[in-house]
């Protein structure tokens, strides 16, 4: 465990993140243009989706695919309830703000997922290719739970915009690209991969480094700007909630009898917090909540925690508990 944690901390990927973080905290003007950050995330989504699809084409789908999707949806829908309860107990956030934050922790961060697969790859641990689809399935349900938490106690339900919001979330660019690339990988299989692997496999880790450099910059700016936005209870939540999520993910993974790699990824997904799809949805649905609250928590607290400490911990636990 300790070795893996150190190896993870001293990998180019994590050090790039640390570099970005440090640069932002030192007020360097280092920055990655918005269009380039977007391009790298398109690349990562396409590559991870495609490889997942190829892996499914290669190994076939066993019965657990459906169950894993169901497990993911349940996790995403249920975790916000836990998160909401904790936040109301330990932080000063009001009902609506707590619900908005809770939505982020039920949903997932695809970059954390990608970093998790990179660790698994580097350790030679295989995982179910369809976990990419599970990741996509976990994006949206948490949002519904959060909206329900708010609507339950308020008369102004704004229900007319609900359908539109769901359409937006389900068809947001990241999900469409991830699932689309998964489908393309599945259809074209190893032959398709052979055509483009020097684009999506070989340079993958390098692109991830530059992307995490940018994530570090954004997280660092978030730390500077978010100072004062979060009380101690909220901060503690941002460090404890991933562990709770990971435990729930571990339970689901064990229950479904998945491989060590699959279980580790279930933990990663449940532990991670969204910072792209859910913030956008919350700005539309719950505009009264200050976005600095959830962005700071998810980007500047939980993401760095998962990247540095969480991921090696989850992988080690998953391996230990499956005798891997």
């Amino acid at each position: 465990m300790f070795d893996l944690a150190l190896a993870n901390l001293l990998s180019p990927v994590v050090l790039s993140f640390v570099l970005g973080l440090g640069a932002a905290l030192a007020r360097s003007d280092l920055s990655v243009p918005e269009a380039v950050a977007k391009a790298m995330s398109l690349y990562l989504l396409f590559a991870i989706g495609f490889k997942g699809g190829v892996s499914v084409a290669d190994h076939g789908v066993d019965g657990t695919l459906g169950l894993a999707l169901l497990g993911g949806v349940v996790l995403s829908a249920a975790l916000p309830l836990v998160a909401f309860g904790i936040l109301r107990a330990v932080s000063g956030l009001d009902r609506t703000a707590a619900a908005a934050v809770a939505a982020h922790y039920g949903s997932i961060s695809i970059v954390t997922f990608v970093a998790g697969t990179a660790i698994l790859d580097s350790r030679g641990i295989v995982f179910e290719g369809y976990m990419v689809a599970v990741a996509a399935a976990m994006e949206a349900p948490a949002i519904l739970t959060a909206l329900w938490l708010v609507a339950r106690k308020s008369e102004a339900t704004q229900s007319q915009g609900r359908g539109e919001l769901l359409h937006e979330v389900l068809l947001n660019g990241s999900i469409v690209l991830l699932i689309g690339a998964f489908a393309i990988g599945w259809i074209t299989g190893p032959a398709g991969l052979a055509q483009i692997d020097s684009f999506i496999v070989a340079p993958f880790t390098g692109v991830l480094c530059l992307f995490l450099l940018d994530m570090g910059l954004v997280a660092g700016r978030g730390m500077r700007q978010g100072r004062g936005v979060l009380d101690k209870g909220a901060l503690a939540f941002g460090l404890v909630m991933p562990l709770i999520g990971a435990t729930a993910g571990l339970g689901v993974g064990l229950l479904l009898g998945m491989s060590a790699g699959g279980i580790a990824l279930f933990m990663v997904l449940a532990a991670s917090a969204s910072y792209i799809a859910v913030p956008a949805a919350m700005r539309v649905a719950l505009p009264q909540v200050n976005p600095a609250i959830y962005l700071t928590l998810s980007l500047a607290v939980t993401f760095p925690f998962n990247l540095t400490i969480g991921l090696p911990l989850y992988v080690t636990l998953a391996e230990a508990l499956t005798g891997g």
Partner: protein
Amino acid sequence: MQTHAAKRVEITIETVMQARLTRALEEAGVTGYTILPVLGGSGRSGGWSRSGQVSRASGMVQVICIIRPERLDPLLEAAFAVVEPHIGVVTITDAQVLRAERF
């Protein structure tokens, strides 16, 4: 040259609300608008900047509508309904336009 009085309305609003705003404007009979990108800004809800933004959640755009003065009120009401619960700013300026038949 011959110019005509018009109102220039500028609405600075979050990117996530852009589609809803332009839809509301079209429903209020606005026949044209122009959208400018916004690099960053600061207001009561703090500062933000586009560089390194990973989330669509915090970008803004500026929607500019040139309209005949008599159409101002329905436009403002439509815009206000969308902007009101959100952060953002609405300003109105007196302007002159060429080719008034377009507005």
